[in-house]
């Protein structure tokens, strides 16, 4: 088993990068422990430590002639050597040869949540979508499940109005003579206010095209439906 490493220092934190190679003929379970006098800050996914890591180190499964790279941070000054192999066990034939070893001492409910957070895609809406969201003073409150569009048209109208204002301004500035351009810039409250106009209008165009395609597709689907509500009410 070959273990090599590099240690970088970033402020009060040491960043440890390790490479492990299994020169043995069979798969092995290897326990690697930190020699720092501080808890390991393991790699995380969605805020949850990656499988196999704990405060002292990591347990890995590694197949014959395989290499595995990993790393961690630790809030302490570098020590030499930073890591050591604490244990090597042969892996049973019914266990998968590669990958990491799940920590089995987790409380089951907790670990299922951790598994979901770690293994599934991030749930958070992209920041771009959030920044584009119209911020109202009131956090909805009465958005009715029956009329989800009740909040919709207003927001859509406002968005269209904002886009229209930007496009108007961009049109005024397109091939404008000096006087028109000066007026437009004065209207906008200075050149700084127009700094990202080009980008925003380009983004508007892209979004408008996407909305238009989606709206057309939805309109087609809406026109094709024929829900037999009356018949159902009679039967109910």
């Amino acid at each position, binding site marked *: 088993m070959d273990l090599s490493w590099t240690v970088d220092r970033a402020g009060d934190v040491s960043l440890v990068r390790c490479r492990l190679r299994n020169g043995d003929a069979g798969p092995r379970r290897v326990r690697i422990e930190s020699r720092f006098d501080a808890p390991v800050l393991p790699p995380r996914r*969605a*805020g*949850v430590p990656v499988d196999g890591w704990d405060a002292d180190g990591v347990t890995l499964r590694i197949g014959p002639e395989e290499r595995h790279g990993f790393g961690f941070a630790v809030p302490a000054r570098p020590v030499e050597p930073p890591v050591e192999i604490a244990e090597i066990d042969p892996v049973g034939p019914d266990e998968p040869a590669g990958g990491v070893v799940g920590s089995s001492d987790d409380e*089951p*409910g*907790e670990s*299922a*949540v*951790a*598994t*979901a*957070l770690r*293994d*599934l*895609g*991030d*749930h*958070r*809406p992209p*920041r771009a*979508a*959030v920044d584009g*969201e119209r*911020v109202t003073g009131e*956090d*909805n*409150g*009465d*958005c*009715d*499940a*029956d*009329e*989800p569009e009740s*909040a919709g048209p207003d927001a859509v109208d406002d968005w269209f109005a904002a886009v229209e204002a930007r496009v108007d301004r961009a049109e005024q500035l397109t091939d404008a003579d000096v006087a028109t351009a000066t007026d437009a810039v004065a209207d906008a409250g200075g050149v700084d206010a127009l700094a990202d106009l080009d980008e925003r209008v380009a983004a508007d165009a892209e979004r408008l095209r996407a909305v238009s395609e989606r709206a057309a597709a939805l309109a087609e689907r809406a026109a094709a439906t024929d829900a*037999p*509500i009356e018949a*159902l*009410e009679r039967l*109910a």
Partner: protein
Amino acid sequence: MILAVAGGKGGVGKTTLAYNVAAALDAVAVDADLGMADLPGGRGPDLHDVLAGRADPTEIVRAGPVDVAPCGRTLAGARACDLSALGDAIAAIERERGVVVLDCPAGRRADAGVPLAVADACLLVVSPRAFALADAIRTRELARELDAGLVGCAVNRVTEEPPTEAVADALGAPAAVIPADPRVGRSVAAERPVVDAAPDSDAAGAIQNLAERVPR
């Protein structure tokens, strides 16, 4: 008892089923669809606030024909949610109120997985269309990985004889048929669960049957 109502696909009627099953179980319906809340909202703190550490889980439960823990409607609120706090929040509501029904989001991202991980059991909703079944099967796999036992599945909004057996075979759980009934569709917005509004209807009977499969 924490029951997740899931289904993978959007628009199959998860929210409606969750609301009506919660009524039949006399449970609190929690809107766990962080990005696209559908259960009745209300003034005051909601699940976004709880998952951002701004509110207590039990204070967001709003009394009604079915008690509801509403969810915020903003993307910014959804983005600020710490999903790892969902387990404790739901457990707190369960301790106080007994049975909790989670209305889960569509998809297979963490916001769909964590409620399944938090739940003791799950109920899958499919529409009678084949592609909805595909999503439901994926969600069933996810629920299995996350230890949420499947108590049943609902074939929702059925207008003609559905392939119930095929659905039950594919999902490996008894399938209940919920006939299309406008009173079910309206129940969430009107806050009139069909088991109260039309207790003798076929839809109410089907929902009662589903509720009876939920271990308590």
